[in-house]
């Protein structure tokens, strides 16, 4: 594993072209999160993102196997570009990106809205997050541990119980007490945690 990390993308590509199939596996494992995350950020649909990820690497494999790849050292940007083009193809096919042209009678801003929260709301929201983190820090360690793993790291109670070495029921109990304790402190000090 350590050896794999040290091998550059360019060398892995070279090895793969030379017939080492394991090199492809290493390349995919190394970059799957970034590439899939990039696709998902544009598509917001897991199944379609998987399809585009698959099509991206089919292109990669075909190009490498036909010796047409000539961008040594720039493997990731090259793959990202392929996936980017496939994302555009996807939107062209589904026609979800209608083309609007600015004319005298039509302004693009009449159909575009800004859904992002205002700066004021963002500040309030950040303050709430900060207050909440401070409150969480005050919890007993075992409760804090479970709460952080569940809420911030999105782990299942099964995973939490495996990592902390306690039963699922104990983890659930700790989570319950963590929330109860948080509510108690919030009520006691009349802290407002809403935006």
């Amino acid at each position, binding site marked *: 594993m350590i050896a794999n990390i040290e091998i550059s993308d360019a060398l892995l590509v070279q090895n793969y072209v030379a017939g080492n*199939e394991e090199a*492809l*596996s290493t390349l*995919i*494992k190394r970059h*799957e*999160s970034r590439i*899939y*995350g990039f696709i*998902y950020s544009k598509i917001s649909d897991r199944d379609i*993102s*998987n399809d585009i*990820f*698959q099509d991206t*690497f*089919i292109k990669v*494999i*075909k190009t490498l*196997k*036909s*010796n047409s790849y000539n961008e040594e050292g720039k493997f990731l940007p090259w793959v990202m570009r392929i996936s980017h083009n496939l994302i555009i193809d996807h939107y062209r096919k589904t026609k979800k990106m209608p083309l609007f042209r600015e004319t005298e009678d039509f302004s693009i801003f009449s159909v575009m809205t800004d859904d992002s929260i205002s700066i004021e709301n963002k500040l309030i*929201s950040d303050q*709430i*997050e900060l207050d*909440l983190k401070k409150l969480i820090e005050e919890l007993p360690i075992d409760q804090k541990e479970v709460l952080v793993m569940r*809420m*911030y*790291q*999105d782990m299942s109670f099964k995973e939490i119980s495996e990592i902390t070495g306690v039963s699922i029921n104990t983890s659930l109990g700790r989570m319950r007490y963590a*929330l109860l304790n948080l509510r108690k402190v919030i009520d006691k000090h009349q802290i407002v*945690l809403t935006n």
Partner: protein
Amino acid sequence: MAKNYVKNSLVIKAMKPKKEVVSFLLNYSKALSVVKVDNRNYEIISN
């Protein structure tokens, strides 16, 4: 729980493709050969 104060945006998720997709790609790669004849590429998939 009655209410979650923690936003989903705070959740750190490693986005990964399905294992089946990766497995398909690795098998596809093993099965695929590209042969060049007269400046044309022919793809051969072996079973």
